[in-house]
């Protein structure tokens, strides 16, 4: 695979590497990465911008404009932190490429030119996007059966809007091996953003399963940003200075052990409890955390406090990886519309119930009936999230947000619903407000289709570019 060396020459290897994650999802605060590069030492800054729904949105953007389809937030971030990155030689790894890593690279090179930063290398990882290869791959024997339901892809084939393979960490290590300061990828595993630089720095090999698993666990702990430093934490009253919460840093060693920490003086907490919270996030079978690089065992390791805001993780065990990559596809799956009104007391809940009855009845009288699974009624403020949970029922709330929604394959039926909500202000019970958003509009439902593809069908490709030079 590698035309260039994957790792640093052995005599230039470090015995400690600092890898931070400054972005847990597209929409996360820009202050996370800005403060990570400004407020303490760092070797690598990783940034995660992709979710399943993002890939589909990006495909649509690219279809309209060939120079779009990537996370534009990333370009703004580079513009803001570039001087620090260069001054401190911090390397950046971001999956901001979305479905168009080349266009993202062009935009980043423009920023570099504007700053007069010459000779900065930007590498891209491609090969994950298989939307245009689906038919070819199916002819070659890939069934792309749904991993959850077993259904064949034929059921949705003509509605597929994106298809991306989750690549592993080795292409990222290869990209760093070219001397790139900025690595832009498309779809890959989230923990791979952290594992990649560790492979590059420490020379870990594809059969070194325990250490690959250690880097994967490290990546999982930091992949949601502040969720391991006190964000979204059960005992939230314990967490100091959440406004200035520190984003996580992995201090990694060649033997696979690592410390989770954050910059000194930042808010939040790193202790065994905040780290375990993130280990439990998105957990499936803890003994088998499957990535393209390794199968990590989340029941294998030990956590131990290592001073203030430091947790040491050691003894991670891994097993051989599987023969397949996971492919995530998205497809058009109908339409939906949701609207809400605020209903004030007295008797807010009873009036909100009356309002919802009126809406569904008026729609039915005009020939628009929605099956129970096609519609939703929520009384926000009167125990929606914990519906049916004993001891949590609020008897008489001061106000209730009435939230109604419908969905289905027919856009017109969904739009019709949206016209029947606001009229309640004048033709329902008193105390109805909160309609400033206007009529609910139909939006597209995007379905997800997880499947597998044999690894030999997929080739990751690394290309490298340099600022201040004509593009080859």
């Amino acid at each position, binding site marked *: 695979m590698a035309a260039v060396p994957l790792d640093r020459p052995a005599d230039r290897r470090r015995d400690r590497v600092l890898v931070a994650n400054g972005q847990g999802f597209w929409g996360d605060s820009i202050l996370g990465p800005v403060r990570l590069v400004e407020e303490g030492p760092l070797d690598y800054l990783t940034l995660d911008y992709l979710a399943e729904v993002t890939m589909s949105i990006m495909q649509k953007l690219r279809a309209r404009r060939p120079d779009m389809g990537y996370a534009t937030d990333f370009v703004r971030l580079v513009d803001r932190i570039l001087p620090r990155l260069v001054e401190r030689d911090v390397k950046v790894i971001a999956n901001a490429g979305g479905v168009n890593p080349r266009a993202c690279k062009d935009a980043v090179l423009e920023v570099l030119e504007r700053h007069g930063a010459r000779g900065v290398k930007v590498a891209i990882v491609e090969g994950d996007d298989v939307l245009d290869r689906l038919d070819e791959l199916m002819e070659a024997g890939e069934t792309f059966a749904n991993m959850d339901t077993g259904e064949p892809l034929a059921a949705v084939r003509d509605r597929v809007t994106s298809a991306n393979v989750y690549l592993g960490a080795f292409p990222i290590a290869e990209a760093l091996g070219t001397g790139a300061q900025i690595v832009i990828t498309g779809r890959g595993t989230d923990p791979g953003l952290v594992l990649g630089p560790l492979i590059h720095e420490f020379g870990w090999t594809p059969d070194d399963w325990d250490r690959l698993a250690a880097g994967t666990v490290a990546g999982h702990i930091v992949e949601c940003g502040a969720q391991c430093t006190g964000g979204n934490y059960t005992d939230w009253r314990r967490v100091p200075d959440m406004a200035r919460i520190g984003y996580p840093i992995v201090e990694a060693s060649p033997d696979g052990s690592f410390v989770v920490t954050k910059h000194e003086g930042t808010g939040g907490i790193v202790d065994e409890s905040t780290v375990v919270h993130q280990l439990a996030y998105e957990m499936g079978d803890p003994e088998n955390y499957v990535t393209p690089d390794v199968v990590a065992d989340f029941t294998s390791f030990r956590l131990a406090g290592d001073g203030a805001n430091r947790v040491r993780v050691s003894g991670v065990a891994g097993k051989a990886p599987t023969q397949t990559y996971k492919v995530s596809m998205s497809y058009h799956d109908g339409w939906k519309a949701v609207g809400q009104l605020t209903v004030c007391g007295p008797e807010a809940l009873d009036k909100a119930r009356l309002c919802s009855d009126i809406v569904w009845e008026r729609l039915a009288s005009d020939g628009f009936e929605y099956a129970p699974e096609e519609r939703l009624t929520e009384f926000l403020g009167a125990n929606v999230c914990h519906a049916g*949970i004993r001891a949590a029922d609020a008897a008489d709330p001061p106000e209730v947000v009435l939230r109604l929604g419908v969905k289905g394959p027919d856009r017109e039926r969904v739009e019709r619903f949206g016209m029947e909500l606001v009229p309640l202000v004048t033709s329902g019970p008193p105390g109805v407000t909160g309609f400033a958003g206007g009529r609910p509009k139909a939006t597209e439902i995007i*379905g997800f289709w997880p499947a597998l593809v044999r690894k030999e069908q997929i080739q990751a490709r690394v290309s490298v570019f340099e600022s201040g030079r004509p593009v080859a």
Partner: protein
Amino acid sequence: MSRVRLSRIAQARSGDKGEGSNVGVIARSASAYEFLKETLTPEVVEWHFERINSGGVRRYAADNVRVLNFLLEDSLGGGGSASLRTDAQGKTHGLALLRLELEVPDAVLESTPEP
């Protein structure tokens, strides 16, 4: 024995997992973990979430970090983009489970620090 909420002896985090959600329950002490391993069965969790989850419940254990992980198989009203619910990603399911009331032996309470 005292009747307390699960939050007295455990913490939790939850999120989406396809068309379902996972709830990781983190015991606040070794004794609380042993007690919960015995009592916090998939059946109890299925009963607790009966109006939220229309699928089954599977349980996994990670003894090293004192986590019981529950997979609620159909708890998001369609999941991802197809859900009409406010909590389409199961972010609040952890707090929902922490509201569960349990009869907990005094010895477990004494050896489990209050939050």
